[in-house]
Every structure is written in C-alpha cells, then in structure tokens.
C-alpha cells in the first residue's frame, strides 16, 4: 500500500475513531499497529510534529541518512538532509515538511541530496499533512531514492541521441559519396568551359570578371562537396600512436601563407614530454588547419594566435567529464590538451549554439562553406576526444581540444 492510499484509508477510518489508551485510534488500528506496518515498508518514512521535529522514522530512513535512530528522533529534516533543487540549496520554507506544516495538504517533488560521503542522490519526496490526534498538524513524508533510475534514464537518452546522430551522419555520409561523383563531373565540364571562354574572350574586362566569378563559384561548389565527403563514415580513420606537438607544427606550416598574409604573430607554448595520443594524423591535421583558419579569418591584420599544449589530470566534473559511462572523460583521468586562442572579434553569444551546425556560417561566401566546424566536431568525436569553444573575457576565442592518453581509463 502506498503512503497516499494509506493516509486516505486513515481518513476514512477517522469518522469511527475512538479514544483509546494511546490517544485517538482509528477503528482496529492503533498507532503501534501503524508503526509496525510502516516499519515493514522499504520506503524511507518519517513523520514530524508541528514544529517539524521528527517524531518517528523507520529503519530505511535511518539507513538513508546514516544516523542512529536516537539521533534522528527530535532532529529536523534540514539538519539531517540538506536538500537541493536544480543545483541550488533549498530554502528552509520550501522543505517538504515545512510546506506541509504551512498548510499544503500534499507534496510531491524531486530533490537532490549530497550525502556526507559525497554521493549525490536524486530523491522523490512525497508527503501528506495530517492531524493525527487533533493536537496539531503532523507531516508525514516518504523518500524514494531514484538515483539509479535517473542515471539509467539519462544514459538511455544519451544513447538514443547518439544513435540518432550516428544514423543521420551515416545517411549524410552515404549520400555525400554518391553526390560527390555525380556533381563533380558536371562541375568539371563547367570548369573546362569557363577556362575555354576565359582564354578566348579577348573582349571586355566585364566578361572576364563574369568568368572569374563563375570560376570562383565552381571552386566553392567543389569545396562544399569536399566538406560533405569528410562526413562520410565509410572513410575509416587510421589511428596511430602520435605526439601532439609535431602535428600542431605541421598544421601550422600548412597555414603559414595565410598567417603571413594577415601579418599575424603566432605564439606557441608546447609542453615537452607529453604522453602519446592515438590519432588519425591526416584527419587531426585537418582539425588543426580548420581551427587555425577560423582564427586567422577572425582577427584583424596584425593579430595574434596562441597555440598551447599541456597535460593535466581532470579533477572536476564538467561538460564532458564525469563518472557516467557516457562521459567521454572520467574524473581523475590524465588528458593531453591543445588550446588555440585568437585576438579576433569573438563569437556573438546568439550564435554559440549553432557554430557546429552543418552549413551555418557567418563568413563571406567565398570564405566559408559552413562545414569547417561541423567536420571538425565529427572528426574529434570519432577520436573520442572533445572540443570546446568559448569567448575569452578579454576578447577573442579560445578553442580547447582534449585527448585521451593511451592506457588511461580506456
């Protein structure tokens, strides 16, 4: 019998109450009987007096709060179990016991409670208010630990999201490979045609300008196709154990022309003795080149790009760091980090949620296909690494890549 039914039952019986040795008793149900019945439930249950002090608790509750029964009796819930809701400390007046004593007849809410041992529990708390012996209100509260259930639900949801994403990517990939061939052939005809006209139109500068635009459009379409192909999951990665720093430098070398054009300063701070990481070198070079190009295009002439590598041990739970199976990194794991910072204009906050979306771009047409970061994220995910992009308080953007170290927590 659940608590609500139980109390409903009590209320039905109330009409036939009579005065017994232990005060008011429902017909055939003494307070002692009821305590016995509640003790055998697996739910953690307490009831309090009108001041919110616990008058009775069952064994599961004492175990939940890891206190002796004697200590529990007379205590207030807020002292035994400081609750939180949505990550914030719950104000005293919003405690389920206090809500009930303030006049709510019934409550049912989800809370978190961090046990003294550090373990964070998700609790479903339900309670009713009753006037047991007409001497004042009592709060009658049960606690249901739904931590495991919530974790399972979250893992399931994340697994579903990943699956949906994987299916999407696979269909994009398959489609891309097919489209690529079919679109490149007509593009090749167009390119040949434009080359032919450009060489024969000895006429006006205007015709030449039109042909130049057409040629640029062909190059752009070709770049879109290339970007789409990068999604193709059929292109398997070739992982090799590598040092990060040479990869960082090789990629820098590939954009040195662009750096020079913008008269940019590059400051590198690459840690020595980094542990090796498992990467597809070509694909990861592409990631770095994409990120460098973004930085170069974001800064004004004479700007600065900083590239830093280091290793660290993860100590805090974060977006991609946690204890769940679905977290990419575990707390305590050692990782290799690469940071790329620019002194550009930064990313408007309104765009932050969309920067990884395919075809989302704020660059001029000839500069961006909107696939750079989408491809970058895809490659990073395939490495079981992480990418984080944020605006720096002092201006400009910081991109942080985190890589797993071979032999660290799988």
């Amino acid at each position, binding site marked *: 019998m659940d608590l609500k039914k139980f109390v409903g039952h009590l209320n039905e019986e109330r009409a036939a109450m009579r005065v017994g040795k232990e005060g008011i008793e429902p017909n055939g149900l003494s307070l002692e009987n009821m305590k016995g019945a509640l003790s055998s439930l697996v739910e953690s249950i307490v009831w309090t007096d009108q001041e919110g002090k616990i008058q009775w608790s069952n064994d599961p509750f004492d175990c939940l709060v890891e206190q002796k029964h004697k200590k529990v009796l007379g205590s207030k819930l807020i002292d035994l179990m400081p609750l939180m809701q949505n990550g914030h400390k719950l104000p005293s007046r919003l405690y389920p016991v206090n809500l009930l004593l303030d006049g709510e007849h019934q409550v049912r809410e989800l809370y978190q409670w961090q046990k003294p041992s550090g373990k964070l529990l998700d609790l479903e708390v339900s309670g009713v208010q009753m006037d047991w012996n007409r001497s004042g209100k009592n709060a009658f509260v049960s606690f249901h630990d739904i931590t495991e259930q919530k974790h399972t639900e979250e893992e399931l949801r994340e697994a579903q999201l990943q699956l949906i994403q994987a299916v999407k990517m696979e269909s994009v990939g398959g489609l891309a490979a097919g489209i690529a*061939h079919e679109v*490149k*052939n007509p593009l*090749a*005809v167009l*390119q*040949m045609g434009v080359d*032919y006209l450009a060489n024969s139109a000895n006429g006006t500068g205007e015709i030449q300008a039109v042909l130049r635009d057409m040629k640029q459009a062909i190059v752009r379409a*070709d770049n879109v*196709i290339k970007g789409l192909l990068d999604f193709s999951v059929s292109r398997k990665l070739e992982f090799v154990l590598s040092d990060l720093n040479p990869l960082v430098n090789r990629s820098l070398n590939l954009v040195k022309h662009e750096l020079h054009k913008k008269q940019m300063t590059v400051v590198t701070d690459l840690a020595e003795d980094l542990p090796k990481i498992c990467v597809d070198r070509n694909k990861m070079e592409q990631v770095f080149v994409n990120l460098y190009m973004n930085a170069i295009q974001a800064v004004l002439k004479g700007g600065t790009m900083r590239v830093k590598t280091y290793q660290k041990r993860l100590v805090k739970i974060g977006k991609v760091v946690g204890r769940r199976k679905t977290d990419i990194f575990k707390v305590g794991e050692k990782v290799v980090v690469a940071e790329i910072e620019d002194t550009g204009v930064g990313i408007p906050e309104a765009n932050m949620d969309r920067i990884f979306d395919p075809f989302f771009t704020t660059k001029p047409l000839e500069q961006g296909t909107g696939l750079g970061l989408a491809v970058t994220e895809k490659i990073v995910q395939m490495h079981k690494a992480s990418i984080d992009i944020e605006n720096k308080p002092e201006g400009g953007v910081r991109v942080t890549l985190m890589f797993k170290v071979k032999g660290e927590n799988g």
Partner: protein
Amino acid sequence: MVKRKILAVDDEPSFTRMLKRNLERTGAYEVEEENLGTRCLSTARRFHPDLILLDIIMPDVEGHFLLSQFKTDQTTRSIPIVFLTATLTKEEMRKNKGALEGVPALAKPVDMRLLLSCIEKYLKK
C-alpha cells in the same frame, strides 16, 4: 610543329568535348574522344596517342580495368596514362602526391593550367 596526340576517355561526351576544345586551341595537341570504355583499346591501337587521359568510374568498364588492358597490350603498353577522376578530392590528391596507385592522377574539376602542366610532364618523349 608536330601535334601531340591525346586520347580522352570519359563517359561524359560534354567533358571530352570541352577537353578537346581547350587542348586543341593551344595548337599543340590533337585530341581523340572516346566515350565508350569497351571501345577504348581499339581506339588507342588505331590512334596511337602520346598520352591517355582516363576516367575511372564509367558505366560500362572500370578505369582500372582499362589501365591493365593498356598496360598488357603490345601496341599501347608504353603510352603514358593520367587518371582524370571525380572519385578523389584535391586534398587526397595532394596527399597522394598526384598519383593513384602509382598512376599520375588529377581530381575533377580540374584547372586547365594544372592539366596542361601535367600533360607536359608525362607526355611520351
């Protein structure tokens, strides 16, 4: 000046037509078009090209198969071959140093200047 002979093999007639126009206009080449893979070998035997531009994905025959035919036939085995294909991206070509399984290759769409320099590099001496 003796014109050098180029055989352009591609299932897309508009592409071989464009190739022919562009190359012949330079005055340095004579171009024969072939749009059927199955007819390639006989065309090559008759035309005696100094270089063959060869597509890979064609509806009737695969470019790789044609390559092996050319390379085993007495009359065509010494003719240089350059793949001209839409199956590769330019990036992949750069990484492969302009070759596909040891055969010089160009990725479509190709720039005329690049095509001309490639032809001049591999043309039969």
